């Protein structure tokens, strides 16, 4: 049989009439199905690399390293979630870093200059994150333009205004509870930041599986026109997704502040663009399609864990810290290629997987 050309593969789905002669996904026995899922593959990789690094380097398995790793992972997971909720609806949010930094700086200002207690300052920061997300959402829905260019522009505007207002000065005199939270260790290994990420992850899983809102998001992300004509308020859904994205970005930024002990404008790089790679790596590795309509919260979680683990491990091996970014880029490439291969294998078996 000839290998299908790109035209053929894309047309096949529309030409094919039913699953005549094909194996349905449901006909595959459950254990085999589990093995073929993306999540299982990630768990396997995490375990394998964990073993390699623990055995191969003196520092990886130490209590201190695992604690630090857990803390960094928690932040990457949140950044990934913040992008994931937008990818699910078929869009992009390039401004996650910028919104995060704005939220963190707002918290710093509320704590240091205004003197609000910690819970209120955090609430204020998250409110700002949500508000900036709402701006994104409203612009995208009103203009009908692609979220790429809108969030490219707002990334610039948000960051620029923040730098202008703050005069690029960091807030370093924060209440000690903040950095204490960042340094806290549970049972010596686990950072409370990781607990926060896990709880948020569980909340997101509940959102998509158990609430009408989450189902509406998946429907709107898969096919906007069909969802709208079925009564889904797609405009409102997109705005809500961006608000959620802003809040999650805010949480991630607050975690960074807890870890470093200060609110620094350059925490996410210029315009917040340092967050872009981790923001995409986690969800994409985890199987959340860029086209929208499918989500795997667990996958995004595991994807971020794998990325953090690999970064940490490579640094343990003294692979030059400058080259880490290259490795991560290669990893992203590898991940999407493998996902492509996996999905065309499953398509040949007769049905698309979830």
């Amino acid at each position, binding site marked *: 049989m000839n290998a299908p050309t*790109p*035209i053929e*593969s894309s047309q096949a789905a529309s030409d094919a009439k039913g699953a005549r002669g094909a194996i349905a996904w449901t006909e595959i026995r459950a254990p085999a199905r589990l093995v073929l899922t993306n999540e299982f593959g990630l768990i396997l990789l995490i375990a394998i690399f964990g073993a390699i690094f623990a055995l191969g380097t003196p520092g990886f398995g130490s209590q201190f390293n695992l604690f630090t790793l857990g803390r960094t992972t928690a932040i990457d997971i949140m950044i990934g979630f913040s992008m994931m909720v937008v990818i699910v609806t078929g869009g*992009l949010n390039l401004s996650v870093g910028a919104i995060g930094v704005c939220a963190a700086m707002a918290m710093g200002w509320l704590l240091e200059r205004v003197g609000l207690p910690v819970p209120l300052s955090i609430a204020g920061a998250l409110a700002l994150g949500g508000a900036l997300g709402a701006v994104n959402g409203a*612009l995208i829905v009103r*203009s*009908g*333009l*692609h979220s*790429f*260019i*809108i969030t*490219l*522009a*707002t*990334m*610039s*505007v948000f*960051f*620029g*205004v923040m*730098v*202008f207002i703050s005069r*690029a000065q960091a807030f370093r005199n924060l209440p000690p509870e903040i950095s204490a939270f960042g340094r806290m260790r549970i049972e010596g290994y686990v950072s409370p930041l990781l607990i926060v990420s896990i709880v948020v992850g569980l909340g997101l899983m509940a959102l998509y599986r158990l609430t009408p809102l989450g189902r509406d998001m998946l429907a709107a992300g898969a096919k906007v026109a069909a969802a709208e004509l079925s009564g889904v308020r797609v405009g409102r859904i997109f705005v809500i997704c961006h608000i959620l994205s802003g809040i999650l970005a805010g949480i991630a930024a607050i975690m960074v502040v807890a870890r470093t002990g200060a609110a620094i404008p350059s925490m996410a790089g*210029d*315009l917040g*663009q340092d967050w*872009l*790679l981790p923001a*995409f790596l986690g969800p*994409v590795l985890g199987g959340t399609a*860029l086209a929208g309509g499918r989500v795997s919260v667990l996958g995004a979680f595991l994807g971020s864990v794998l990325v953090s683990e690999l970064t940490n491990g490579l640094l343990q091996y003294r692979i*030059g810290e*400058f*080259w*880490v*970014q*290259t*490795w*991560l*880029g*290669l990893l*992203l*490439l590898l991940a*999407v*290629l493998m996902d*492509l291969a996996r999905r065309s294998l499953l398509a040949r078996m007769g049905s698309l997987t979830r």
Partner: protein
Amino acid sequence: MTAALSRFLRTDWFGPLAIIVAASIGISVFDPSFLSPFNIQILLLAASVNCVIAMSQMVIIAIGQMNLAIGAIGGLSAICFAGLMQVWGFPPVLAAAAGLAIGVAAGLINGYLIARTGISAFIITLASLSIFKGADLGITRAQPFYGIPASVKAFGNTTIIGAVPWLALPAALVVAGMWYLLYRQRIGRYILAVGGNANAAELSGVSIARTVISAHAISGFLAALAGIMLVARLQLGQPSIGDDWLILSFAAPVIGGAALSGGHVSVFGTLFGVVIVAIITQALVIFRIDPYFVEVVLGLLILWAVGVNRLREVKFQNLASTA
């Protein structure tokens, strides 16, 4: 007269040109030194490099994609250019050729991956952005190359005649070349065809893969050229070259009327978009507005420009459906 005027109004470049003229007149009223030869030279120096950056993204917008790796490719080519001269004593022309070759190679890799795997350009160029940026940092260990030959430094900072700097020459050649490519050459028409309706182009026998690869190769070449030009102007090989190219690379083509869905760009519109950005940056300095505000202005400009383009596109579609 009115027929000719309405034809001008409908082009992509007329609006931006009008803005340039109005802004120049307006600013020079406040500050007459704005139109001085010295100031014009500064404007042209900034615009020359930015022009090549914008053209690099423009050719990818034409094909209906986006290239996030432009800065990384430019940066990598720049430090290779500087490094070859400083560390291995390459003559500037040879080092520049090597730098350009690197840019083309990077573009070819991007184009090949996108064409053959069908994975979105966004993800592929996000990955290659990281790969090339990492290589940039890895090679330089975050330290700039200072050993730039005097001839190169002169090229980047002196003038040919009057206020026109040497750097404007490659920029002008690029503009002319892009115009010729997109409007008088088959490969350029195919790039616009694939961006306009890839399926239709393919059924007419146009090879989408070859067109995509060519577009990315051109984009990589131009990014590398911009990087090399920037080394000449900055007089050192900075690893951070390219870090701030992303917003600008989109702002100018969009101000110039490009359709992000592909199939429609304006070479002169993009050029005038670059000039507008340069003027605004200058104006911020003249009016003593915080330089941090540049980012904000660029972002707002993009929002305004895409909004306007969107309105024009909606009108364009309405025209088609009622015909």
